[in-house]
Each structure stands twice: as structure tokens, then as C-alpha cells.
């Protein structure tokens, strides 16, 4: 752990630490907040921070966006290309996919929230939990199984 406090390590890894702070803020919102919409927003923050972390894997100091120069025939100019330093494009591709997955999840979550609001008349987790506990109690009361005459 001693490494942790060395200046060189810190300057090289401070970005990761900041991403982790953001991730954990998002995760905290998901786990702590009881409003269902807010949970989804927390999830978004969590995911976006993970995306930043991913993209930072591909970053090369002094590099540029991986879009190559073109020659006059609209082909990639392979000689000009050699002189430029590019960042790694693979994490970008993965994150494009992940962003799409994220919006898909968000939209499904929001649709569920709308339905939950319509049938429970609240979007607060603790209120819903109370209603559900009552429903479970009622069920158990109504369908109370006569255990005593089994054995």
C-alpha cells in the first residue's frame, strides 16, 4: 500500500480514483435512495462513470481521436497516418455498445416505474414495501395452512 502515497503513482492514477469516486456516488444513489426514478438516475451515473473509466484505458498521452487522414481519392492516407499517435479505439467501441445497453435499460426501468405508479399509486420504495408487506400478511392470513394436523 506504500505505493499509494508516492507522487508518481498518484499523478498516473488520479484519474482512476476520480472515476471511482463518481462510480461510488452513483452506486450510493442506487442503493440508498428510495425514489424509483432517482434510483434509475443513480444507475445512469454509475454506468457513465464506468464508461469514463473504460475510455480512459484507451487514452494515450499525446494521442488523438482514431480518425485517419484521407488522401484525395478518399482512401486512408497511410503515410500521413504513420506520423500521428492515436488512442486505442477498442474501448470506444465497447462503450458505444454499453451506452446503448444503458439507454435500453433506462427506458425499460422507466416504463416499469410508470406501471408501478399506476398500480401502487406511489413511486417510493419504502411505501411500496409497506403495501407489499401488508399484501403478504393478508395472503398468509387468507391462505393460512393448517400445519398442525400434518404430523
Amino acid at each position, binding site marked *: 500500500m506504500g505505493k499509494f502515497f508516492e507522487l508518481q503513482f498518484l499523478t498516473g492514477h488520479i484519474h482512476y480514483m476520480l472515476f471511482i469516486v463518481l462510480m461510488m456516488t452513483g452506486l450510493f444513489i442506487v442503493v440508498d435512495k428510495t425514489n424509483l*426514478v432517482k434510483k434509475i438516475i443513480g444507475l445512469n451515473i454509475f454506468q457513465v462513470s464506468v464508461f469514463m473509466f473504460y475510455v480512459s484505458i484507451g487514452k494515450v498521452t499525446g494521442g488523438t481521436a482514431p480518425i485517419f487522414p484521407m488522401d484525395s481519392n478518399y482512401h486512408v492516407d497511410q503515410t500521413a497516418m504513420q506520423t500521428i499517435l492515436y488512442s486505442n479505439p477498442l474501448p470506444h467501441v465497447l462503450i458505444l455498445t454499453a451506452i446503448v445497453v444503458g439507454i435500453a435499460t433506462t427506458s425499460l426501468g422507466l416504463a416499469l416505474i410508470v406501471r408501478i405508479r399506476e398500480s401502487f399509486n406511489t413511486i417510493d420504495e419504502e411505501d411500496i414495501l409497506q403495501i407489499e408487506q401488508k399484501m403478504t400478511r393478508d395472503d398468509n392470513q387468507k391462505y393460512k395452512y393448517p400445519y398442525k394436523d400434518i404430523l
Partner: protein
Amino acid sequence: MIDTFTNTVLFVMLVLTALAIVRMERLFAVVMLSSVFSLLSALLFVTLDAVDVAFTEAAVGAGISTVLMLGTIALTKPVAKTPRHTAFVPLIVVCVTGAALVYGTLDMPAFGSLDAPAQTHVGPDYLSRTPTDIDVPNAVTAILGSYRGFDTLGETAVVFTAGIGVLLLLSGLRRRREDEDDEI
């Protein structure tokens, strides 16, 4: 130097936005702030050279998902309640996860280093092969569509799944001639 400066400013703003989202209870403000968060992160993606990602994040995070969230609030409730439970357990979960992440960073290659495994193993192959294999200037499109085209097919399917899911939950499939609907 200017990179470090912009990154730092963006980080500070991102963290502040995130903290504001934690504190706020008016959902309209929260949604707007989350839209701001997305835009700021899009800026950060630009400084990290991920222009395609930045574009997508701006279109999705600040665009579509904000619209959807506003739509949801209109259909639900505008104010969030303060949780009645204590934040003790959530804090523990977050701290443990954070500690695991920090533990992981200890052996990570330094940010931006050229000799990191990601910069020496497969990544550079994409850059060097794209001009001859596919010959499109945007390496991201080349990987997205061809080298890892199957992932993108899966991604399209995810979007399609979300569409079907929302229809199942909220409206139902429409056919061209409703009178022919096989509803019994």
C-alpha cells in the same frame, strides 16, 4: 497541461453535479442535473479522444433519456421523499466496492501510458490493419461494424428488446388495420 486543466475542471463539475443529485429532492431538477452530468461526461469523453462516444453520450444521455425521464415524471410524482432508513448499510456497500476498485488500481498501468497492455496487444492491430482491411478513416466505425460487428448486432437486438419491452408494458403492438385485430 491544458488537458490536465480541463480534465480537472470537468471532474470537479461532475462530482458537484453528482453530489447535487444525491441531495436534491425535486425530480425535475434531478433530471436536469443528470442531463448536465451527461453533457459534462460527453466533454470529458472528447478530452479522452473518444469523439464517437461523446457524440452518443450527448445524444442519448442529454437527449433521449432526459425526454424519457421527464415523460416518466409527468406520469408519476414530481417530488422524491427522503429515505426513512439510515444510510449506514448503503455506505458500507459503497465503501467495500470502492475499496475493491482502489485495490484494483494499484497494479494498473499509469493513465495514458504507451506501454500498457491495452496499447500493445490487440489495440494497435486495429489501428494498423484498418486502412488495408477496411479502408475507412474512422477506426471506431471499422471495429464497430466489421471486426466486432457481431457485438453491434447484439446491441441492435438489445435496443429492439427494449422497444418490445416498453410496448409490452405500456401500449401493445399496433397492426396496420386495427379492425383485423385478432383480439378475442
